[in-house]
């Protein structure tokens, strides 16, 4: 099997190099799109990884929390802050920060409530029981979105400035892409600080390692789990805002599609591993952008899902611990 993997990776590299040689400027532009997508996926993938790390539960509803986050953000931006295209920079910053806070709080609380209602009563039940309720909750959230916004797309006009941050040799990096990174990176840094440096983060790591032992050490396990869901929800809310700003179109099923891609990213990097989720998300972002954007022998957007899921299956079968994860008894 290593031989097969080597051949596949070699083919991938050849494909990328040829594409790069055919048009370096175009290739770089596509790579920037991949970076932006990857940053967005990272926000959602971290939510999956945080929850999986602590509960070993695939929180199926996470993608839909993200989708509701995008809807909260759209509502805040358009109906509360009355943001219009070409608004002044000051107003833009105030509106984005204000919407970010609201979306993070709303999604965090929503996620914690979901945990309390649908997952906590099943703490001791067979493993598949909470997964099944998670699927149920996912559908319920989608219908809440339908009831709230209707079954068609909610559109956000393009609010971000499209000017160039820099432009080198025909490659322009636009502000709208840079703002996505600008929102994502501080949130990721804050998360890392929270998990690594604070008391609550220590409790989270302890609970993830061994729930019973953590309880005996005086950690309130249920509160820690609720807190984890709160953080994961807040990350989904951030992702929602970024999605509403950058892509500008949200529908009730947006969360399902993007959630699965983000989950794949989390598994790709090694589920339960925070840097791994970011790395995996960037990889998936690049893969998607290259697949949809490149011209020389790219399968095209019709096949994106198949490629992402094919990748997911290959990883789960051959390297269930992911790129950065440690080998666990889960897979093999």
């Amino acid at each position, binding site marked *: 099997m290593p031989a097969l993997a080597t051949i596949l990776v070699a083919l991938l590299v050849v494909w990328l190099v040829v594409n790069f040689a055919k048009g370096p400027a175009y290739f770089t532009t596509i790579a920037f799109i991949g970076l932006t997508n990857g940053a967005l996926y990272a926000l959602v993938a971290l939510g999956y990884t945080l929850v999986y790390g602590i509960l070993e539960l695939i929180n199926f509803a996470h993608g839909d929390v993200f989708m509701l986050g995008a809807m909260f953000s759209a509502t805040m931006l358009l109906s509360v802050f009355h943001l219009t295209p070409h608004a002044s920079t000051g107003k833009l910053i105030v509106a984005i920060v204000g919407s970010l806070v609201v979306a993070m709080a709303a999604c965090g609380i929503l996620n914690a409530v979901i945990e309390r209602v649908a997952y906590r009563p099943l703490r001791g039940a067979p*493993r598949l029981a909470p997964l099944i309720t998670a699927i149920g909750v996912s559908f319920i959230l989608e219908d809440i979105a339908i009831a709230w916004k209707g079954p068609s797309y909610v559109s956000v006009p393009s609010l971000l400035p499209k000017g160039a941050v820099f432009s080198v040799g025909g490659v322009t990096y636009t502000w709208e892409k840079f703002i996505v990174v600008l929102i994502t990176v501080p949130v990721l840094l804050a998360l890392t600080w929270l998990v690594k440096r604070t008391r609550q983060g220590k409790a989270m790591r302890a609970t993830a390692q061994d729930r019973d032992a953590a309880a005996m050490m005086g950690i309130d396990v249920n509160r820690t789990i609720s807190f984890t869901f709160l953080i994961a929800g807040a990350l989904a809310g951030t992702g929602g805002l970024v999605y509403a700003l950058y892509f500008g179109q949200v529908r009730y099923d947006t969360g399902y599609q993007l959630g699965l891609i983000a989950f794949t990213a989390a598994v790709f990097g090694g589920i339960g591993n925070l840097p791994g989720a970011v790395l995996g998300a960037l990889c998936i972002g690049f893969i998607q952008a290259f697949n949809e954007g490149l011209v020389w022998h790219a399968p095209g957007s019709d096949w994106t899902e198949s490629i992402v899921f094919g990748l997911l299956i290959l990883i789960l079968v051959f390297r269930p611990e992911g790129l950065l994860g440690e080998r666990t008894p889960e897979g093999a």
Partner: protein
Amino acid sequence: MRRRLGAAISAGWWRCLSVFGLSQKRWRSLPRTTRRAVKGLVWTGIGLLLVAFLGVWEWSALVIAAIVLVLVVPSWNRLVVSGHRIGQWIPTIAILVLAVTYPFYASSTTGVSTGLPQLPVFGTFPLMSTMVNMGIFTMMALGLNFVVGYAGLLDLGYVAFYAMGSYMAGWLASSQFSQVNVRFGGIGVIQGLTGIHISIWLVLLLAGMVTALVGIVIGLPTLRLRGDYLAIVTLGFGEILPQIARNGDSLGGFNLTNGTGGISPIDPPGFGSWLHRHFDLPANFGALGTTFDRTYFWTILVLVLLTIFCSARLRDSRLGRAWIAIREDEIAAAAMGVPLMRTKTWAYATGAFFGGVAGAFYASYNGSSNPDEFYFQISVFILVMVILGGMGSIPGVIFGACFLTYLNSEGLNNIGAWLNGHFGPGGSDFEIWHKPLDVPQYNFGIYGVILVVVMLFRPEGLIPSSRRAAEFHEGVREESLYDVEHGAPISDATEAV
């Protein structure tokens, strides 16, 4: 917490009854049939009162209540005639007779429901086309039950098998591959039509076998993954196969699936002219006209009966016992010498087989296989059927499949119309909402609520198999050594079980 709430309600209930001189002890000493009869009558009374309160009073409600009471109240399986326990078959046969004769009493020949008066809230009796769908979904749910109910493997991509079966029918019984000209017993195929036309009866079998093979191919690399990873991998396959179907109109220049257009028309089944002449069986289902739906209904009924037979026999076989052993404790089963991979793969293949047959039948009934029908929601829809009825319980799964298919095709529409008529704009009772409520739009939210509520309050399903129920209630004290919520050792809680 849930259990304590239940115990408190039960204690309060018995305290209330003891005021009237009926203690729990005395109740338990009554004969079982009496207890069942009293319980059944009380529930029926409550139901009828509710119906009367809502202002719909039809004699059909009484008739249905009476039928249910007769079937449920007596302990039929205790009836022994000359050494044979024939009693246990009575409810089954009664339901079967009701099902087989359904087209005669409940709908006209054109499939429109006319024979019986309207039901309260639910409106008219299901149409014939809904009944056919019920049969098809029952078959699929029973197929999924092999995987989820017996072997305990969560499969979120069952729709892939359904799609596979459907496309097998599309490939082998239509003009899709017009490059070749193969005929084998195809019924009602116009002379000179190109393409592969094989008799649908054979296609059903072939579809099942090929789909089972696909199940094995999918299963072999993935079945060693643990439960939730397996669920995600199956979901992945459930997304990939339909996408291939959607994009398959030019796979390297070859038109495999005709893309989003789907394959149509697909040949109908039939018995051919010889059987038609000698036994009066329909020669070609496609040319039937008004009795079209009911003929398909009886056919799918036969297929469902076959599936039930296989389900029951396989469950009690050596293989079935191995499935259940794996479900209950994988490590213990492996230690006892159950080959894990082979047993799981067989569960997968068996489930896939029935999914494929049902898919092929569905394609033949609809006359087309269309990629729009295969999406994740359908996988979950079938899963909800299995979970609502009771994982691993054949009557439960049948009930779940019929009920949910009915809800999806007509029930939600009828209930929505009823709700809007009574509580909607200009409603006859009180106007609660002022814009018509589109209930069928929320179908999957409703199924989501069903999933959550069933998993939280009755994880064994509505009609559970006793074994599975015991497992779910035992599982509660399995996980942690220490109850972190109440700070008491778990061993105390076992008394409540």
